[in-house]
């Protein structure tokens, strides 16, 4: 499942909604990305491409299910103005086995970084600027490349 929203989220409630009543789930991995402040950040505004965002998130989510035997998964990505310490993104994967949950959750985040049409503008005491994409993120995505 995927959701694009302005509001925050309650990870405990999201996990419960995903997993309740499914006795096959043995492990739930999750990740929360926060607005980091390395000094002077006032806020971060996430712009996105409505329509394409939902398509890409659904595609990334489906790709995780294609690669791993998942019992449930969720991607929640926020947009709009966020302050330091606020959550930006939540990924959850649930599976019979812990390593499947860990790997697929990690995969979702790596793909989101390079495949989800979001852009971040930071507002700091020193001014505003658009956050540049990281070559690291491309490398992180590429390690999931399937061979053959």
């Amino acid at each position, binding site marked *: 499942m995927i959701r694009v929203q302005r509001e925050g989220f309650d990870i405990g409630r999201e996990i419960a909604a995903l997993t309740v009543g499914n006795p096959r789930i043995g492990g739930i991995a999750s990740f929360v*990305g926060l607005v980091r402040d390395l000094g002077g950040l006032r806020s971060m505004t996430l*712009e*996105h*491409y409505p*329509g*394409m965002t939902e*398509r890409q998130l659904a595609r990334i989510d489906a790709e995780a299910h294609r690669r791993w035997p998942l019992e449930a998964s969720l991607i929640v*990505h926020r947009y709009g103005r966020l302050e330091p310490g606020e959550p*930006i*993104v939540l990924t959850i994967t649930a599976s019979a086995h812990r390593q499947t949950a860990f790997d697929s959750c990690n995969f979702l*985040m790596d793909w*989101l*970084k*390079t*495949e*989800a*049409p*979001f*852009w*971040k*503008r930071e507002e700091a005491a020193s001014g505003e600027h*658009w*956050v*540049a*994409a*990281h070559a690291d*993120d491309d490398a992180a995505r590429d390690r999931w490349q399937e061979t053959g």
Partner: protein
Amino acid sequence: MKILYFAWLRDKAGMSERQVSPPPGVATVGALIDWLTDQDERQAAVFADRSVVRFAVNQDFAEADTPIGTGDEVAFFPPVTGG
């Protein structure tokens, strides 16, 4: 044809969205960029460094040789920074 600009490409373009009617010979994203660049200085500034411009056709990531046509939605934006 609907054109969208995001992030700092929008800032440079001075608009987030426009309707354009390129001539029939403009049949790929690359050709569309060439055509837009020739329209005015703001558009030329948007596409000045094409290595940092990414694009989508009908909400799917596209390449310079991806075909486009009337009624398509073409979006231009910098590399994404999701997650």
